[in-house]
């Protein structure tokens, strides 16, 4: 069974007085342990689709199933709880909390979940080692390079062992070499942690890492399993 099933999803934005369709009749399934890539030009709706999958935006119509159960987008508290427990985010510009050290940034989702201090310490240490930035644990984000920050962001997304990892242009701010390392890391850890990984990118170099690639063109999804 797929983790997420999107059925006939529609979304439009109002630009001036005219509504402009961004997603039209999207059908998509995301499976745990798989990396799904969404590619397309800027403004094609990749981020919108990603945001809906990550439960931070809502569709105008259509249905989204989470482990076979319909998601109620009006139940904000339940959505927050689901994000807190089961969804990790990696953003293009890292979005680390600047006043917290790398370790505290990674610990944050576990704080929210109410894990004990010892559990948090152990989990943070493990994941920082996996993304190979353990030596920078006590550094503030400003003291880290772009690649190191994105590794910390990946660690923050994965530390709670989410069912879904949503990554919006995770390599756009990185140089080529670092981008490939980060993509490799996400793929490897996503599989290791058994989460469904959906990534929006217009970086063709990431295609080889994806189990499925979908092209978004004028709100319509094309493509599928490679």
């Amino acid at each position: 069974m797929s983790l997420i099933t999107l059925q006939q999803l529609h979304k439009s934005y109002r630009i001036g007085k005219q509504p402009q369709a961004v997603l039209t009749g999207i059908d998509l399934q995301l499976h745990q342990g798989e990396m799904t890539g969404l590619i397309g030009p800027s403004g094609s709706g990749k981020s919108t689709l990603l945001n809906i999958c990550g439960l931070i935006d809502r569709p105008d119509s259509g249905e989204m199933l989470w482990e076979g159960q319909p998601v109620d987008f009006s139940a904000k508290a339940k959505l927050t709880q689901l994000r807190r427990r089961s969804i990790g985010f990696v953003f293009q510009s890292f979005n680390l909390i600047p006043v917290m050290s790398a370790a505290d940034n990674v610990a944050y989702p576990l704080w929210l979940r109410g894990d004990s201090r010892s559990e948090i310490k152990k989990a943070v240490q493990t994941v920082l080692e996996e993304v190979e930035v353990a030596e920078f644990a006590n550094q503030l984000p400003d003291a880290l390079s772009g690649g190191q920050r994105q590794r910390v962001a990946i660690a923050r997304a994965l530390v709670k062992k989410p069912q879904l990892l949503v990554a919006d242009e995770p390599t756009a701010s990185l140089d080529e070499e670092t981008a490939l390392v980060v993509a490799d890391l996400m793929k490897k850890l996503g599989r290791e942690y058994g989460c469904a990984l959906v990534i929006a990118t217009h970086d063709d170099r990431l295609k080889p890492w994806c189990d499925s690639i979908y092209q978004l063109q004028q709100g319509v999804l094309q493509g599928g399993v490679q």
Partner: protein
Amino acid sequence: MKWLFLAWKNLGRNRRRTLATLLLIAVAVFGLMALSGFALYTYESLKEASMREEGQVILSHPEYFQREENRPLELGLSGVKDLQQQLQADSGVRRVLARINFEGLVSNGEKSTIFMGRGVEPERFQIQGQGVQLKQGRWLSPQLDPTAFPEVLLGKRLAQSLQVEPGDGLTLLGTTTEGVLNALDVDVRGIVSTGIPEMDARLLMVHLDSAQELLVSDQVSQLGVYLYSSQQDVAYYQQLSEEYPELGVTAWHERATFYHSVRDLYNRIFGVMGVILLVMVGFAIFNTASMSVMERTRELGTLAALGTRRREILGLFVQEALLIALLGSLLGLLLAAGLSGALYFSDVQMPPPPGQTEGYPLYIYWSPLMAGLSSLAVVVFAALAAGLATLKGINKPIVEALNHV
């Protein structure tokens, strides 16, 4: 605890803004403490002066304070020596002092003028405080010298009017309790000031016995009971009211009209100023929180995306404001304590109030109650202002917040 930790870290983001807000709160709390401390000192001084003038509890004829006497001591008390001894037997009573209020004419041989007389017991001068200040000469002798003329103390302006100094002689003219004119030759012992020009133009104080000699009576106008502890006045007043139902028992505050007027006036003036200071604090915190929310909009989106509840984000900003408010309050309280201490050890004089001739020392009480109330008010205002400023930010859709530039 983790939110408090994060709130503490966030205070360091824009240190200059945090410091400015903190200092403004400190100044506001300092202002509240200084205003309330000055008011409390004034209230306490006036209360003390009122108590020392006539006593914490006053015994008199039941109608004495209700209507004017047609002749001297018409509403006087008789046989007060026994009553004084009974009252003095109470271990909480420091002194029971009799007093006669009367009027008459005083003459230097060439000029006569009206006086407002007080027949007092000399012990009064040991406990009267700063209400009456000796300007020239000496206080009344503890014992009357039967071989000498009776002594008087004159108000400063009365002495100027009669052109006399200590040692000069005067003649008092008064009406006895039977309505007959009587005269008494006296010596000026000293010149005093109450600080109130109108009072100083009429005040004349003599020994109680001398007043009784002039009025040809053994009665007194009132008995003032002075307690060791001013905290006991209410209980003692109730006790005397029950024990002496045939007498008029009056509490000091019923006679302290000036005290009540000043208190009402200061409460309003300083109350309005206090509210203005609190509103300033509210605006400062609102501004700081608004700026912070605006600058951290994307971060709010990130926190919400990670599963942080709105109330947790709201709580974070409120805690930041509370930390600034608490630190600012603490600094303000320390500054106020410093000022209070500095004034205590220095002699800063306030100019005479309108209608008075004597200045008074400037003190500011540092009241733990006012410290708690000021801090609490500032903290509550800060929390409300921060909450209000943050609501707009946390109600923004997450995607919009994440895309905020």
